[in-house]
């Protein structure tokens, strides 16, 4: 952290699709850097003191909720935990995450995409008895290692970085993307989910699914939670290839 106060330059894409005739433009804002400043702090400073119309999304501001993914100097990442001190020249270019419907400026509609993804992979435990479990009795046992492994895959925060970093998704609009593969892999690993490989194949066994992946692995490179996308995609592919 430098003790000399710097003036940061934020170059931000401005566009409000709600305003008729609005044209996307890049606007530059200057902000005096403070110690420990994150992009969360800087953007709020701009909104409060320079331009109250600036749109962006933050919820937890602690890297937990996944709301604030944006393209920061060309790389998708969580803005809330990105320190401005990371950028030696003090020039920070912010763009909304591609691959999602734009709400305005840096705000995108990840919610719609993620709900559709969850519906597509049927992101829930498939067990006809799940709703008839006797809640008074001991829960079904699970191997402690299996529980830990499931949690590893469940750490995804649906931020959308993997979707925006995916070249296949850019070419194929219906591509499920790494977030969907990870979700499916999580349920495939879970002994409580009674779906068979044939049933999983119905969901991901095509070019919009796991066979469409070109293995460029932007997902692996840009996942803020360091989830094992590469391993899981390779594993799912092998497992699905064995189905037919």
């Amino acid at each position, binding site marked *: 952290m430098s003790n000399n106060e710097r003036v940061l330059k934020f170059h931000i894409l401005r566009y409000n699709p709600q305003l008729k005739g609005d044209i996307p433009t890049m606007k530059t804002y200057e902000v005096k850097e403070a110690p420990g400043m*994150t992009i969360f702090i800087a953007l709020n400073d701009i909104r409060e003191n320079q331009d109250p119309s600036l749109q962006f999304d933050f*919820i*937890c501001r602690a890297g937990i909720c*996944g709301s604030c993914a944006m393209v920061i100097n060309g790389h998708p990442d969580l803005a809330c935990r990105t320190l401005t001190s990371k950028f030696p020249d003090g020039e920070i270019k912010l763009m909304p995450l591609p691959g999602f419907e734009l709400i305005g400026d840096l705000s995108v509609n990840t*919610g719609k995409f993620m709900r559709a993804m969850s519906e597509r992979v049927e*992101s829930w435990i498939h067990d006809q008895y799940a709703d008839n479990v006797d809640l008074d009795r001991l829960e079904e046992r699970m191997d402690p290692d299996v529980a830990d492994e499931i949690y590893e895959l*469940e750490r995804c925060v649906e931020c959308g970085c993997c979707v925006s970093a995916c070249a296949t998704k850019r070419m194929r609009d219906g591509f499920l993307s790494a977030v969907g593969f990870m979700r499916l892999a999580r349920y495939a690993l879970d002994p409580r*989910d009674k779906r068979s490989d044939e049933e999983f194949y119905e969901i991901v066994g095509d070019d919009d699914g796991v066979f469409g992946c070109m293995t460029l692995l932007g997902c692996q490179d840009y996942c803020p939670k360091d989830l094992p996308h590469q391993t899981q995609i390779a594993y799912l592919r092998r497992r699905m290839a064995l189905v037919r």
Partner: protein
Amino acid sequence: MKVVYTDSLVIGGGLAGLRIAIAARQRGYDSIVLSLMPAKRSHSAAAQGGMQASLGASIKGEGDNEDVHFEDTVKGSDWGCDQDVARMFVNTAPKAIRQLCAWGVPWSRVRKGDREVVINGQKVTITEKDEAHGLITSRDFGGTKKWRTCFTSDGTGHTMLYAMDNKAIQLGIQVHERKEAVALIHEDGVCYGAVVRDLVTGELVAYVAKATTIATGGYGRLYAVTTNAVISEGIGNAIALETGIAPLGNMEAVQFHPTAIVPVGILTTEGCRGDGGLLLDKDGYRFMPDYEPGKKELASRDVVSRRMTEHIRKGKGVSSRYGDHLWLDITLLGRQHIEKNLREVKEICEYFLGIDPVKEYIPVRPTQHYSMGGVRTRSTGESPTMKGLFSAGEAACWDMHGFNRLGGNSVAETVVAGMIVGEYVADYCAQNPLNINTKLIEQFMDREKEKISALLSRDKGENPFELKKEMQQIMMDKVGIFRNEADLSQAVEELKVLHQRSKNIALRHKISSSNPELVEAIRVPKMIRLAQCVAYGAMLRKESRGAHAREDYPERNDRDWLKRTLTFWPDENADLPEVKYEDLDIMKMEMPPGSRGYGVDNTIHHPDTEKRVAQLEEIKKANPNADRFEMQRLLNPIEIPDKFRGKNERVGKGFK
């Protein structure tokens, strides 16, 4: 005029709100959830450390049951809670956790055999029983007799919220995202839904429902520094208050968490101390045993936060450009443990502080964390004065936390209240056909439209961001951990001025669609009113109870203050809320007031306490053969939905 009809409208898409929508849906009622953002981003996701439920599978949880959990919860609340509700809660918590297990939460499990843990700064080996292998395990948390906090690493809230939202998706429950309820629609003491603003298009839509539930979380953002998400602004509480009919309960009961990082206030879980972490001062000295020789770092949150503040005031804090702080030391837990069970904490330290908590101490300070107060409800979750209005989770004052909540009891409350209140919401939908005049809807819609056009047309006036900052600073400086008459009365006066000024907000950016400044302008006057409820309630309560600590009234005063604060705002033009009180009846308590066992017991007792203690002794003597369930029914019979009445099984104990 656009109107959306449903049976059960839920405002807020966190754990409590989703669970209520699920309950109503499973009973065959249409449910719509309104959320400011995708439901999976709700603040519930930030709960790291765990959920309390007395499963007693881990060896350190052996002997745990509903009674022990009840006792901890009541003591933790400093006898301010509703004991009927606490009873319903402890009985249902094991069922809630088991249901979430069936719905997919990968709870961390017991592994049979030896494992090394850190207790009181020492490495100790404990041996888990063979027969518990694979059951849900638990960790230690503050203010609890047993290791009762069940967890998924330190991502408990995340995994619970994902399982819950996925269940809602499975059931086809609609979550209407980026929608904000700005007013409740009501007439003659009955609630009929809400006026809702679309945060993208700016359109106002009326959501009309048989039952309306407020599940919008806490009001932490009334404070300048808080662990809460930026959306925890209490707007759900405010729209209930603005009806003038529905009261808020115990708004002055605000919890400060001992270990948020400095300066940004992001939480590091109580699991850090539960798993053996220590608090150190500027000399690297472990000071908590000097203050609280019994529970040390694992005293209740309010106690630890006060002790830390006292220690800092003695000059023992570490000075920094952001003010004094103390250290949280988890280095003694070792890399393996931290990377597995405290990995969110590790990430937070790396990203926001640039330190590795495996090797370095974490700078921490007590920080606003939880709102015990909220929309006052009966044990059914319904407002006592407004039919059809329900509330659950942190937004509610259901009141199982009284004046201090135990760690791990908040996510537990969200799902347990969701289950219980959800049944009552469904009952309400079954019994009350929707009967509303569209003129009423129009009237409420017009009122909100007019308010917004006034904001958009005013040329000169107050800046909403500035007003909010001033309010947050007043709350920080004058309505904090330690309180006194001078500060509180100043806060009340200053907030009155802000309230006046908030009637004259003008915008720089005058468009009605997606406009962050307009959102702020709508919220800030509501937040200022809530702040007034907190500050005024704190000024009037002349005792110390739980998290409400008065320097000028240090004793808990059961004689005069064993009562719940109810705050109303009947006159829109008034400068202060109206405050009433609701007595807590000792003669009905299963556990009459006693000592929490921290520091000196300087309680001023209520005359009924002695009477009730004697009465309980008699009942116990007269029924020497009653088992613990029969005894509980004798001491305090409670209503609970049939579904959740059963006894809970525990390993090695059966249903005893």
